[in-house]
């Protein structure tokens, strides 16, 4: 009890102290925006933890990717704001009429940071080393397993990758797969310098060499990673001289550092901190809809959730709006469908079940579920990018369900054990979520709801096995026409809405904060952090 008070007092003190500093500084600085971007300066970027490694093919964590985003490039890249796929290291690509052959034409005159020319051989090297095939690529066993390649099922998609000539790469697919091009914009398919990988082998992860706008300078573990402007960059050169990624694990201290000006930007912001940042005149809160979903999965093969009425009742019983207003503090959107509204293919025609306790009660009665029926609701203990306070969310849902006569017993576990438990499908109901990878609806709907994803270790935590949905999702994979695909995904969302394997809860916003003199930062739905267009307004 005492402890809690101590914390609150401290937070208040921190807020006051910070407000004091901010106020004093704003008298001089103000927030004028000079029209023209200015070159020069070092951007100090604070985050909660250090990168794990800097070989994009081996990494699985966001903090590593955010550094890689500035060091490496891919054949294709995302639009600045959306997940539309645009040319990057490839200037164009052709798709054969059967949808199985992709031919990429490469940009000329590009060099890696170590001077190695970028060419078709480098593309084949970067991707071929990740494939599971016999005989294995000479670098397949170097630096550990390529887990992201496997988790995106790339071996099921790709038959062969070859260099037709120095500036042309041809991908032969096993079956038409429309989301494939979007995968080529993801971090794990970034193009690395074959010379550098050959030179450093197992230690390449700390000698990253790409073609990106910034190049690597140094890495002091758990403290900082320093990048500098790549003077030979093929595109528009970055404004910043240097970028320093600093690991400051304690949230309060990180925000203090931003308010003090020790760092100029930061991530890892809780809704509570976001509120304080929004009020601080020296700081700017950056906010976009996140490409994620938090949901409650019900086991469709276990009572009481094997009855459709019960799952529908659950959907009527949960008051999402209050939940998002209260626990996400408004930094999120109540979820209707599995995919977020910002994603293409989202079906806005589907109306949410809506909060209706009376209807929930009558559906439960209809299903023959007695008031007071118990079940175990599993929830993770640690915050995730799609849910700031899982335990409190579970408690709010528990209270909602209690009013309609369902008794949820909350059970929580440490993250590692939790994943193991639910992926082994040992639960009845669980709260979990997903952060999208490549901006394609397939990456949500197929991964989380297809019957093939219900095999242990499962990602389909409802054990939802619908042949109807499976057919639609596979059709959407093999069709390359965007309009047809969007129609198929609308159909998929209708099926999911009808069968109600989940209670979709919320899509959480993506948040970052900078000092007012930092300009040009545009957050991306995939959480990519691209600093090439960022510039710092010098103090006048």
């Amino acid at each position, binding site marked *: 009890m005492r402890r809690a008070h101590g914390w609150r007092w401290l937070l208040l003190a921190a807020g006051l102290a910070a407000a004091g500093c901010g106020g004093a500084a704003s008298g001089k600085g103000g927030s004028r925006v000079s029209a023209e971007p200015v070159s020069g300066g070092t951007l100090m970027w604070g985050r909660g933890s250090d990168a794990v490694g800097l070989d994009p093919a081996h990494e699985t964590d966001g903090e590593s990717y955010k550094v890689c985003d500035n060091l490496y490039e891919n054949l294709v890249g995302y639009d600045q704001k959306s997940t539309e796929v645009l040319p990057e290291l490839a200037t164009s690509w052709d798709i054969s009429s059967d949808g199985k052959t992709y031919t990429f034409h490469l940009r000329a005159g590009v060099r890696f940071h170590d001077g190695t020319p970028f060419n078709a051989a480098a593309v084949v090297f970067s991707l071929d080393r990740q494939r599971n095939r016999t005989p294995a690529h000479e670098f397949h066993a170097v630096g550990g397993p390529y887990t992201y390649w*496997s988790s995106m099922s790339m071996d099921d998609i790709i038959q062969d990758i070859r260099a037709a000539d120095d500036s042309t790469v041809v991908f032969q697919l096993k079956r038409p797969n429309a989301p494939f091009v979007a995968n080529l914009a993801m971090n794990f398919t970034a193009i690395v310098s074959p010379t550098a990988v050959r030179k450093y082998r197992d230690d390449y992860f700390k000698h990253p060499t790409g073609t990106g706008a910034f190049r690597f300078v140094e890495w002091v*573990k758990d403290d900082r990673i320093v990048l500098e402007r790549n003077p030979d960059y093929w595109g528009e050169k970055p404004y910043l001289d240097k970028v320093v990624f600093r690991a400051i694990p304690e949230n309060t201290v990180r925000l203090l550092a931003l308010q003090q000006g020790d760092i100029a930007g930061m991530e890892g912001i809780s809704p509570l901190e976001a509120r304080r940042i929004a009020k601080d005149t020296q700081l700017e809160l950056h906010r976009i809809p996140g490409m994620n979903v938090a949901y409650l999965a019900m086991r469709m093969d276990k009572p009481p959730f094997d009855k459709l009425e019960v799952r529908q009742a659950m959907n009527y019983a949960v008051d999402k709006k209050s939940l998002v207003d209260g626990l996400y503090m408004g930094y999120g959107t109540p979820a209707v469908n599995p995919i977020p509204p910002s994603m293409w293919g989202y079906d806005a025609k589907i109306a949410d079940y809506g909060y209706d306790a009376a209807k929930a009660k009558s559906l439960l009665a209809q299903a023959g579920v007695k008031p007071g029926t118990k079940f175990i609701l599993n929830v993770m203990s640690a915050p995730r990018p799609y849910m700031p306070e899982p335990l409190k969310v579970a408690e709010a849902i528990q209270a909602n369900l209690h009013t309609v006569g369902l008794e949820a017993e909350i059970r929580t576990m440490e993250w590692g054990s939790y994943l193991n438990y639910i992926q082994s499908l040992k639960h009845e109901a669980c709260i979990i979520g997903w952060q999208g990878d490549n901006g394609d609806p397939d990456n949500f709907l197929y991964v989380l709801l297809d019957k093939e994803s219900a095999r242990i*270790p499962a990602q389909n935590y409802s054990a939802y096995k619908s042949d109807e949905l499976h057919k639609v999702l596979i059709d959407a994979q093999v069709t390359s026409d965007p309009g047809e695909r969007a129609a198929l995904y609308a159909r998929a969302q209708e099926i999911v809405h009808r069968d109600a394997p989940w209670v979709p809860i919320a899509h959480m916003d993506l948040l970052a904060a900078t000092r007012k003199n930092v300009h040009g930062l545009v957050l991306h739905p995939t959480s990519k952090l691209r600093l090439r267009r960022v510039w710092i307004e010098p103090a006048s």
Partner: protein
Amino acid sequence: MVGYLGRRIALLVPTLLGVSVLAFSLIHLVPGDPAQVMLGERANARAVAELRHEMGLDQPLPVQYWRFLSAALAGDLGRSIKTREKVSVEMTQRFPATFELAVAALLIAVGLGVPLGVLAARRRGGWVDAAVMTGSLVGVSLPIFWLGLLLLLWLSVGVGWFPLSGRIDPGLAVPSVTGFLLVDTLLAGRLDSLFDALRHLALPALALGTIPLSVISRITRSSVLEVLQLDYVRTAWAKGLSERVVLAKHVLKNALVPILTVIGLQFGYLLGGAIITETIFAWPGLGRWLLLSVQARDFRAVQGGVMLVALVFVVVNLVVDLLYAVIDPRIRLTGDEA
């Protein structure tokens, strides 16, 4: 003496072996599969299987232990499963930070704790005694995360004397030669960097030093009190020696053995890394690394880290035991007695 030393060093082998078994079994007993933890929400069957194979987790436990032990005996602790860096490299990158912080915290604790303890004993029952004892009670009970944040708010944000986090301002960084920043800045001949590193060191050392400071002042007080009542001290007073001579030469020297024991133990703890202090002050040391390794179920890192901490602890204890003989000639360190 040499025999004693030899025997103590020989004892290191079974100690470390025991620690290795313990570390290995504990990290493998903790629920949660490292492959699954690493892949998170996107673990699918093939990715998990590949990762487990790569980590050797598809082998029986005794085989895994034997592989670990035989490699460790050859000086190879393997690569961290999370970062793929050699565990030995991970440790040598972080140990200097922990060592500098531990030594600074200990200097504060001993430098203040021993004089305060002596003073409290000498003024027993007076207000000084009461103040020191109350202060040390508060010092032991204060949660470090609270104290650390308070120090930051007051001395860093408020007064602006000290920086908020890290070991050095990135703009003043010097090339790493030894990893010990205080040494490296001197080697580089950069006094401005040295000064900056010291300013970064001050607050975490102060926060980390409070508990040892309190413990040391309390043990000093009680140990000195005990000696003060002995007959030879009365004789020293009777000879008309000054208070300084009586306390420093006659009392403290004889009271030092238990104090030294406590200092040794405290130093051992400090060298194991200070998770909370390192987290608050963004100090890149061993403690936070070990914590993150445990959370990631990075068993290779945990095994290596625990072995290192155990080794450091044992060595510090050995040094303390040897020091007994230096300060108290009555203690003879012979092979037979040990």
